[in-house]
């Protein structure tokens, strides 16, 4: 490893670390938001609230709520 490599290493590592953080934050954002929305929908449907046009596909909160009931 040359002197130039050592001098530039913090900038390269910093860039890849920044990319890792940004991607991790994006993944965490969509994952946590999905769980929160799904939980909220399941709770509302468990209380008997359904949209008139609701026809939830299999595996979605509506069918889960019905199964629990």
């Amino acid at each position, binding site marked *: 490893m040359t002197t130039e490599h050592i001098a530039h290493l913090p*900038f*390269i590592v910093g*860039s890849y670390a920044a990319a890792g953080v940004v991607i991790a934050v*994006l993944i965490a954002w969509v994952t946590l*938001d999905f769980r929160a929305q799904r939980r909220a*929908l399941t709770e509302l449907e468990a209380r008997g609230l359904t949209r008139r046009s609701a026809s939830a596909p299999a595996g979605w909160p509506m069918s889960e709520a019905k199964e629990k009931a």
Partner: protein
Amino acid sequence: MPIIDLANPSRFLSFANRAIPWLGGVTVIVLAFGLNQAISAPDDYQQGATVKIMYLHVPSAWLGMLCWGLMTVAALGTLVWRHPLADVAAKAAAPIGAAFTLLCLVTGSLWGRPEWGTYWVWDARLTSELVLLLLYLGVIAVWRTVEDPSRAARAAAILTLVGAIDLPIIKFSVDWWNTLHQGASVFRLGGSTIYPTMLIPLLVMAVAFTLLFATLHLAAMRNEILRRRVRTLRLMQASAAT
């Protein structure tokens, strides 16, 4: 499934539910391959090892612009065609585009310090990219401050269409003004000026970032549809209680 069927939010949810795991899996494989290619790519004769920053910086810059382009089409979908998923797509894309634009600016600064001797310069390319980030933040702010989703969608769509003027400015800033930022070196008349040993990892990383964007966008759109269903049910609950 015909593509027109995806205009129905319930069918879109069903499609997203099935597609996200597959798309995520392909993204991980291509990203791992791209990172391996980027790390093992040779150093540049002028930039040395800092050329490895390019494999993150350039795809981030492309994605930041591509995302605004997608939001512009979605804005037309909202204002002209009133497509049921257009504003969902635009709202879901904004934070992802902002993140890629921020990453572009951060990696560009980290490349600029050893190569230019400075983290930042008010160069036309850098400044127009910063404007793009501010536009993204503006759109996110509109979505967060206007409570009625349909009004927020129209306001955000207008801002998006106005902001689209920044895309050609970013692209051609290096031609129109005398900038410190280098000119186009991948997509240009006369072919790429980058040697294949560096161009191939760059293109693989660009594909990986595009797949990552597609996965995140699909997941964010699914979340937004669910959020609207939750909102509708809460409004029904509130009206039933009064």
